[in-house]
Each structure stands twice: as structure tokens, then as C-alpha cells.
């Protein structure tokens, strides 16, 4: 029952994120640059629910975005899957209790996601390589995502704790024994 509720929360969170991204953040931009809520969502799901849930979740929502708005199928799916995987590594090495750490994680994965997507687009679609406009867009997007993380952190932490209790097995910190 608890798992079913958690899965329902994950589905609902995705739809709310999607609607916010498509409607609200299509005009609520910083210098015409939109944030990417899917990166934040995938990172948090993987951090709190673990990579076993995070990776398939990232791939599914990535595929959804690719099918609805992408030029090719796979770029978002692959990159969000990788982000979920990276989140597992970050969870093992850093504390997700600190807001600053979380913010830095979001900034890092945003940079990683967009850089990866851009390189994949260059290879797959032969797009023009424009380092400077890309860098400017990326920096603004990173900044925007970081600000949103500060705002959303309390909600994310509450939902995250519920997901953590549902999906993750309790950790035994052997070093303390």
C-alpha cells in the first residue's frame, strides 16, 4: 500500500513538473532562458528513493519528453538515466541534508545534462557548434535551477523522506560499531 502511494506520488510529481515546465516556465524566464525542472526532479528521486527507482524513473520521463517534444528519441532519456545513476554516487559521498550541498549537486548535474545533451545533438543532428551562446545559456540555466532548488527544498525534503522510507533499506553505519 505504501509503495503504491509512493508510486502515485512519483507519477503526480512528474505531471505537475511537466505542466509547470510547459506552461508557467515558458514565460517566467530569466533573459528568455527557462529552467529545467526534470533535472531537479530526477536528481531528487534518485537521491531519496535510490538508483533502483531513480534510473527507470529518469529514463521514463526522459522518453516522455523526447516523444512529446524532442527531435530525436533518446537524448533526454539517456541523459536523465545517467543523472539518476550519478545521483546514486552523490548520495553515497555527500549529505543531502545540507541545502548548499543539494544546490551544488543541482548545479553540477544541470551542467552535466546540458553539456551531454548538446554533444549528443552535435553528433546526432550535426548542429552548429556555438560555444559562447551555449555557455551563456547554460550559466543562466544553472543559476535558475539553483534558485528553484532553494525555493523547493522543503517540499522536496518532505516528499523525499517519504520516498526514502518506502524504497530504501535502512542503512547500517558499520563505522560506528
Amino acid at each position, binding site marked *: 500500500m505504501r509503495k503504491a502511494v509512493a508510486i502515485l506520488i512519483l507519477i503526480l510529481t512528474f505531471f505537475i513538473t511537466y505542466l509547470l*515546465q*510547459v506552461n508557467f*516556465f*515558458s514565460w*517566467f*524566464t*530569466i*533573459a*528568455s*532562458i*527557462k529552467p*529545467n525542472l526534470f533535472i531537479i526532479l530526477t536528481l531528487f528521486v534518485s537521491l531519496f528513493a535510490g538508483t533502483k527507482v531513480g534510473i527507470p524513473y529518469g529514463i521514463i520521463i526522459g522518453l516522455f*519528453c523526447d516523444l*512529446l*517534444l*524532442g*527531435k530525436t528519441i533518446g537524448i533526454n532519456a539517456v541523459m536523465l538515466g545517467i543523472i539518476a545513476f550519478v545521483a546514486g554516487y552523490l548520495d553515497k559521498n555527500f549529505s543531502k*541534508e*545540507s541545502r548548499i550541498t543539494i544546490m551544488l549537486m543541482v548545479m553540477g548535474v544541470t551542467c552535466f545534462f*546540458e553539456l551531454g*545533451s*548538446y554533444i549528443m*545533438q552535435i553528433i546526432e*543532428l*550535426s*548542429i*552548429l557548434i*556555438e560555444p559562447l*551562446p*551555449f555557455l551563456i*545559456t547554460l550559466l543562466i*540555466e544553472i543559476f535558475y535551477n539553483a*534558485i*528553484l532548488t*532553494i*525555493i523547493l*527544498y*522543503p517540499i522536496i525534503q518532505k516528499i523525499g523522506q517519504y520516498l526514502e522510507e518506502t524504497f530504501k533499506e535502512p542503512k547500517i553505519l558499520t563505522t560506528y560499531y
Partner: protein
Amino acid sequence: MYKNKKTSITGIIITIVILIIIVIISNIKIQDVAYIENALGVVIMPIQNGLTYLKNWISGNNSFFSNINTLQEENEALKKKNIELEQSLRELEIIKSENDTLREYVNLTDKYSEYKTLPAYVIQRDISNYSDIIIINIGSKEGIEVNMPVISEQGLVGHIISVTDHTAKVQTIIDTASTISCTISSSRDKMVARGTLQQNSTLKATFIPTEATILEGDSVETSGIGGIYPKGIHIGTISQIINTKNITDRYAIIQTAVDFNKLETMLVIVGNNESNQGEGT
């Protein structure tokens, strides 16, 4: 983790306020700040009027109190009239908006009468900062197919890249993966225009022939080569020419005729009305 919950909430509120301010400031246009002028006018003009009145009063031109009762009655009547007019204006604005949309469709159809077209409007825009795909409200059930060109009253919009039953995905010409073969209208020189990451509806024109005479302000249209876009559809105008040491590397910036930020209605070209048109399709 939090030392103080109240401090945390205050922090979030401050961050939201800062974010809103950044968004507003970053998207502001010079012409949009006219309201500041208006606001200043609201503050300063009554003082100015008062001073002018004082000056006139001192000069012996005081007629302010003479008809004060009549003026109050007139003011009340005008207020009522104003409310009625505002109501009418709102109704007219709704009618005007509907009329504009219909007229846009009619104008579009007249302008491109040589093509069989279907009207459409944007239902969703791209979520990424690095591509420009739009979704329109017609799909395969309405006769839309992949690679059909999309135009608007101002010029070329893009082409269909995928369709569902009632929607279609349009890759706009400013998308980073878009490439169009185009012609300078005056000199008939051909070049290739590609979408860029710039956020201001521009294209980068490359492969400009070395002997080509190209000037800022020249109109650019589709060449018909490439198999997707018909010949002669307006793309935009050349806004900048960037000369390099090697003349073969020079390129030009094309300002698209279509303002993609405001694009709402468009036409999908589904076929030709005249057999000799659109050699590129």
C-alpha cells in the same frame, strides 16, 4: 536540520521575491518602461497643475471656485458615462480579438493562394533552451504529413517533423538542427541558412558565393532546393554581414520575418493549387 523554521521560510520568501525581480528585469524592454513615465506623471502632474493654478491665481485669472457645483455634477455624469464606455470597450476588445484571428487566417490564405493550406495554431512550445520545436493543433486526421512546410503571414516558419492523429510537431527554421537553402531576392545568389542558439529569431547564412554581392537589408527567400520548402517563401532580411580574412568563410545574420516569440497562427502547406508552383516540394 534547520536551526529556525521561521528563518527558513523567510529565506524562501526572499529568494522567491529576488527571482521574480530578476525575471522581470531580465525580460524588460525599453518601450515597456513607459509606465514608469506614466507613474512619475501621476505623481508630478498634480503638483505641476497646482503650481500652474497658483501662478494663474496670483496673476488674477482665478476662476476655479466659480463653477465648482456645475463641475461636480458634470464629473459625476462623466464617471457614469466612463463606466458604460469601459464596458463597451471590453466587449469590443473580445470581438476585435476574434476578428483579428479570423482576418489573419483569411489574409494568410489569400497571400499564399497558390498553395492548398490548412490553418493551425500553437498549442505547446519547446521546454528546452537549445531547440525550437512547436506543437500545432492539427495532425494526420486533418491531412498533415511529415515534411510539409509551415508558413505564417510574415514568412517561413518551419516544417513538420512528426504527426499524431490531432497534433503535429514543427521544427522551426530557428531550431539549431534546421538548415535551409535560400536565395537573396535581388541578386539571386544562393546560400545556406542555419538556426542558432541566439534567443532573438536569427539565422546564420553560410556558403555565400565569393562573387556574390550581399548587402544589409537584402531580402532572403527559399530557393526551392532541398525537397521540403517551396521556392520563393520569404524568410527574412540580412541584418549583418560578417567578413573574415578568408572570403569563403564570411557569413551573414538573417533576421527572420517571423517573430517566433509571438507566433500563434500559421498555415501548413498541404499541396499546390497550380501545377507549376513549388518546384522544391
